[in-house]
């Protein structure tokens, strides 16, 4: 069954976590892109984490979504990471060389100042 792409926000300390669920293709990425950007603009967190643990499918549109949020976060001086990709999602991230561009964390995320965030 098709799982609509959705995003759920959690804030902990100064870090905003956007937990993405469902299928992150072009259709799905378009649905959640603006929502994440809006949340960042209103919350103004010190760090942004995209939690990918509940992503059931991802293609290059997901790579575009991640890189787009990464460059916006960098412009705003925020730290950025993606967390807990499934094996399938990790394969796409690796093939796209994302491990060399953005921080990929597994388990609980701690931002640069060591504050427990998620």
């Amino acid at each position, binding site marked *: 069954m098709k799982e609509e792409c959705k995003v759920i926000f959690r804030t902990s300390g100064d870090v905003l976590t956007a937990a993405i669920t469902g299928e992150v293709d*072009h*259709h799905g990425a378009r649905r959640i892109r603006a929502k994440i950007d809006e949340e960042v603009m209103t919350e103004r967190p010190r760090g942004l984490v995209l939690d990918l643990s509940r992503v059931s499918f991802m293609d290059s549109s997901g790579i575009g979504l991640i890189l787009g949020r990464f460059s916006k976060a960098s412009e705003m001086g925020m730290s950025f990471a993606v967390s807990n990709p499934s094996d399938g999602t990790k394969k796409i991230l690796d093939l*796209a060389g994302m491990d060399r561009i953005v921080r990929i964390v597994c388990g609980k995320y701690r931002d640069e100042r060591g504050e427990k965030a998620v």
Partner: protein
Amino acid sequence: MKKKNCINSMRVSLPSFSVNESAARAIVSAFVAQLNPTFDELSDIKCAVSEAVTNSTVHGYRNVIGQITIGVRLFDDRSVRIEVKDKGRGIEDVEVAMQPLFTTDPDGERSGMGFTLIENFMDTLAVKSKPGRGTRVVMKKKLSALPVTR
């Protein structure tokens, strides 16, 4: 060498609504499932189909809705041939377009990795295109042998 025979085939045509990207993945994977691919093989095929169909949607039919035709053939040597065709704007220089990171995306949300992912997930990828006429993507993958059952 033994000639391989086509044992089953299907063809479907979908309008280029973005919601049909997941429909295309589901249709192709349901059809290919009769060859009993592994979970990883099916994931690879789903992603490859998604890339080709998305390209037709966002590049081929930029700002318009057109038909995308998807053809799948299954062969007795456990190989799969998938064709994705559009009658959209076409590609000026296919060789350049296939290079990693090349994109003509105007809004900066595409990474130019679609063709590269297809090349990694499938055994072969062939792209034929004429500017103003459309694009045809043919990709093939041979599935691993079925485990021997007693």
